[in-house]
């Protein structure tokens, strides 16, 4: 499999990259790790005229903490996220998700920004960012804008990124005390895309009830989405298996899976229930710990 021809540039700084994107608006495609994009280029399902490789752009691959949030550079690889103990201590869900993506080589090179911008409905990060109420930082020649992850994923392979923008950072609000999260992924085999993935981030209030909650689902809609019905059912509720089961069923009802080689829609809906239940339980366990 051979890609169709394209041009390639590797700008040295973000200003240059943004200038090129502006000049070649609509023809240029940002290249990060390449593990999502290259298979599509080789299948000739994508034929951009120009690839803008952002590997030389400095300062985009760090993981840092501010008073309010965790900031993950768009070029942070899955492996870097997997191995960051500080991040895992605050947001163990990030380690859950990073460890399940692809295989070691893919984790070495694939980046969170690349995956988020690519917006494959079966990719794991988008659902996790729904659960975490994360924000996405987009830079253009005109400046920077910060958009919520909820609403960012418009459709299959479509996001709110403009053709002249580069995704530079993911921001995740620091969880309050008594918080926990979990990502539960069902795959057919190691390294496979998710059949279903469920991301849950939960914060318990002083009364032991669920104070804050986010649930994101992978691979059961045209785009990853937040299971808002389940969230509504649980917010303010007393956590427990029965409640979790009900909420998981609500998540399942809200999902819109398609039949494919991972299974028929009926199976996937049942798996949404199961994976969401597991994630709720695990998140609750972590919130208590």
């Amino acid at each position, binding site marked *: 499999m051979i890609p169709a021809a394209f041009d390639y540039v590797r700008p040295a700084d973000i200003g240059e990259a943004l200038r090129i994107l502006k000049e070649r608006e609509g023809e240029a*495609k940002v290249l990060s790790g390449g593990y999502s994009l290259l298979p*599509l280029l080789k*299948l*000739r*399902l*994508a*034929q*951009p005229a120009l690839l803008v490789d952002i590997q030389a752009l400095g300062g985009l691959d760090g993981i840092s903490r501010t008073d309010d949030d965790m900031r993950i550079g768009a070029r942070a690889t899955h492996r870097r996220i997997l191995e960051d103990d500080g991040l895992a201590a605050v947001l163990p869900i990030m380690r859950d998700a990073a460890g399940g993506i692809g295989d070691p080589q893919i984790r070495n090179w694939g980046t969170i920004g690349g995956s988020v911008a690519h*917006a494959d*409905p*079966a990719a794991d990060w988008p659902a996790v960012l729904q659960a975490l109420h994360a924000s996405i930082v987009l830079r253009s020649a005109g400046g920077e804008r910060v958009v919520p992850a909820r609403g960012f994923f418009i*459709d*299959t*392979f*479509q996001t709110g990124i403009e053709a002249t923008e580069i995704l530079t950072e993911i921001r995740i609000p620091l969880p309050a005390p008594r918080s926990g999260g979990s990502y539960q992924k069902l795959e057919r085999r190691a390294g496979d895309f998710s059949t279903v993935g469920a991301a849950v981030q939960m914060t318990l209030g002083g009364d032991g009830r669920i104070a804050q909650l986010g649930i994101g689902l992978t691979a059961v809609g*045209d785009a990853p989405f937040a299971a808002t019905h389940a969230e509504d059912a649980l917010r303010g509720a007393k956590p427990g298996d029965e409640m979790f089961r009900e909420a998981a069923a609500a998540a399942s009802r809200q999902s819109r899976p*398609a*039949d*494919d*080689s*991972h299974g028929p829609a009926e199976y996937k809906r049942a798996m949404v229930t199961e994976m969401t239940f597991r994630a709720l339980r695990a998140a609750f366990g972590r919130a208590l710990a």
Partner: protein
Amino acid sequence: MEFSGAVDIPATRDHVFAFVTDPNRVGACGPGVESIEVIDATHFRAKAKVGVGFITARFVVDLEITEQRAPDMAIIKARGQAPGSAVDALGRMNLVDGAEPGTTTMLWAAEVNLSGMLASVGARMVEGTANKMIGQAFDCMRAKIVAEG
């Protein structure tokens, strides 16, 4: 894959029928259509760039109105070919008077078959995408007919 639906259009059946059987007018509503070539009254060839997000394929689409009865119904056959992939569609459209005088309800049904590479590797995104494209096409037709007045 089978799709169907109904669209209410604030125009007469004659007007709607004339629009949807005129390639130069309806053509622009085809998903990703870049050019239309009219071969004869019932045969057209379109070039279209179809896809989702940045995933696209360029198709050469041959269209044929295989049956028509103005201003009630028409059947259109389409065959699109791209390297390694092909799409075949059979669309049937029935026009009935709408609830309001001077309006039309278009009842449509389409059978879409995808062959080749897209069907093999793209199955998980095809149905949703096709559904959306069809929806967009009808929205477009409605808007254009309204705009024509």
